[in-house]
């Protein structure tokens, strides 16, 4: 669906553990969004000295009420402004952006893995997968209990919920990948979906590959524009033709087939990427 740029009214700004859940009235965005897509928000008001948009995966998109929800973690001046924005604030929102998670053509069991507030898109995805008739098994992980997002809602969208925290403050101590292979085997899952930090996605990709099932991952690369013009959010990805390219996570992603991403090379310029040889001489 074509994205829109809209003035969206902030209608809710609520605590959610270590995060804030922001609810915005943005009918054009809500009516077009699919799980895995994101929105890019301008921060700081019209004369802001913070020029770059902040991108957030959509947590909810309700076309009937025209509302969208995003989960915001405060970790800089831009998100600090956002989490303190009073209800009634008008926010400049662009979206929905990026390619969503692809749903299977036939019902099948799926495992959904999320780290921190990377769980945001997983709840709507879980509902859609269950509506198709497939079982959904959700794995949520975080450093500590307050950094798990959506735990209370998890059982509503999933047939089983597994929780892991680094410090053991919720669920079992450990990583989301601990026992993931066994979960995939036991549930006869045919598809893995994941969203979270890059290191977690890489680990999930490795477990999925070892189990012989595909994984779709939504990456979190830093973006300046979110709309495909700035070329800052690139990562090395293998194309259908076997060639690796530096591709934009905002436009060609954020959802990628995990086996196409060159995880070990993210943040580098591999010599065999298309056009890498042209970098040496100029």
């Amino acid at each position, binding site marked *: 669906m*074509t*994205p*829109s*740029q809209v003035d969206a009214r902030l209608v809710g700004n609520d605590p959610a553990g270590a995060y804030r859940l922001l609810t915005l009235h943005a009918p054009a965005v809500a009516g077009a969004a699919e799980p895995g897509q994101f929105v890019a928000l*301008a921060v700081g008001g019209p004369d*802001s*000295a*913070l*020029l*770059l*948009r902040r991108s957030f995966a959509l947590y909810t998109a309700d076309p009937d009420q025209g509302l969208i929800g995003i989960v915001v973690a405060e970790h800089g001046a831009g998100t600090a402004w956002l989490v303190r924005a009073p209800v009634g604030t008008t926010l*400049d929102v*662009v979206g929905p952006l990026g390619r969503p998670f692809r749903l299977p053509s036939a019902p099948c069991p799926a495992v959904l893995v999320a780290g921190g507030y990377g769980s945001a898109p997983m709840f709507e995805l879980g509902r859609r997968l269950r509506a198709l008739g497939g079982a959904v098994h959700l794995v949520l992980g975080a450093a500590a209990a307050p950094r798990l997002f959506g735990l209370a809602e998890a059982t509503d969208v999933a047939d089983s919920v597994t929780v892991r925290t680094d410090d053991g403050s919720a669920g079992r101590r450990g990583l989301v990948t601990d026992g993931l292979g066994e979960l995939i085997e036991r549930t006869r899952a045919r598809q893995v979906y994941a969203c979270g930090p890059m290191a977690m996605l890489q680990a999930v990709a490795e477990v999925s590959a070892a189990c012989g099932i595909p994984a779709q991952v939504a990456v979190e*690369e*830093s973006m*300046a*524009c979110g*709309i*495909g*013009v*700035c*070329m*800052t*959010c*690139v*990562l090395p990805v293998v194309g259908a033709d076997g060639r690796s*390219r*530096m591709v934009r996570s905002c*436009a060609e992603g954020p959802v990628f087939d995990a086996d196409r991403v060159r995880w070990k090379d*993210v*943040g*580098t*310029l591999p010599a065999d*990427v*298309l*056009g*890498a040889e*042209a*970098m*040496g*001489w*100029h």
Partner: protein
Amino acid sequence: MALTSTAVDLATVLAGVALPNPVLTASGCAAAGRELAPYLDPAELGAVVTKSVMLRARSGRATPRMAETPSGMLNSIGLQGPGIEAFLADDLPWLAARGARAVVSIAGGSVAEFAELAGRLAGAPGLALIEANISCPNVASRGQVFACDPAAAADVVAAVTAAADVPVLAKLSPDVTDIVSIARACVAAGAAGLSMVNTLLGMVIDTDSLRPVLAGITGGLSGPAIRPVAVRCVWQVHQALPEVPILGMGGIRSGRDALQFLLAGASAVSVGTAVFHDPSAPARVLRELRADLARLGFTRVSGVVGLAHRDGGR
């Protein structure tokens, strides 16, 4: 006297090319126009200035490529692009089919490459002007860009002008001691106009990792933070070379920002980094500029070009 906005004639002439209005995109900030189509009509702008294209496909640098700075940003993309062949096959026809005018930015590693690029563009549909990017800081030689040396800049401009079938703009760097001497050299070599300015070379160090933020270590600084530098450059060159057409850019975010550049001597402006903040910024700047000109009682763009240099300000 109250003038309606329709009373302002926004048409301008840039380096001999008639444009319906003086607001363009900026190279590297609008790709080749397609990504902005959901937010504005590229045909309604003065022209779309496309991201610098090179002869061959180019990967660009490793990440991180970007750092936000006060009222600006650093970028270290490294001219990622598909190469001239794909650009001619995919990008330029898309703009032409929508009735948009294209100012094609070209970048080469040598004089010969610049000339070959200009030759490949000859006869291309929708091509209005060529912008020779002799000042991109994100190249292997960093500060040693063509635009930092009058003779090197002139060599490129002469070769591009000879090979091109449209007027050529030379894009200048503000990172020079005397921008007027570079401007003179480019004009003497055949540049029909000047694009001013490219980014300033900058750097940010991460105080947690204790290392440079950018994988490329240094990057080009853009955004409103550099606007006063850019306005100064346009002012100095227009003062020295009042007959030379200038496409002004550097931190333009509003109609009033654009008006500053026109008053300093630019015939048209490019809206660049503001697009990252607001993808419809070029169309908005155009609306605001129209309203500002009407409010000030001007009926034509040409009436304000360079006006700040003349007596009789209010």
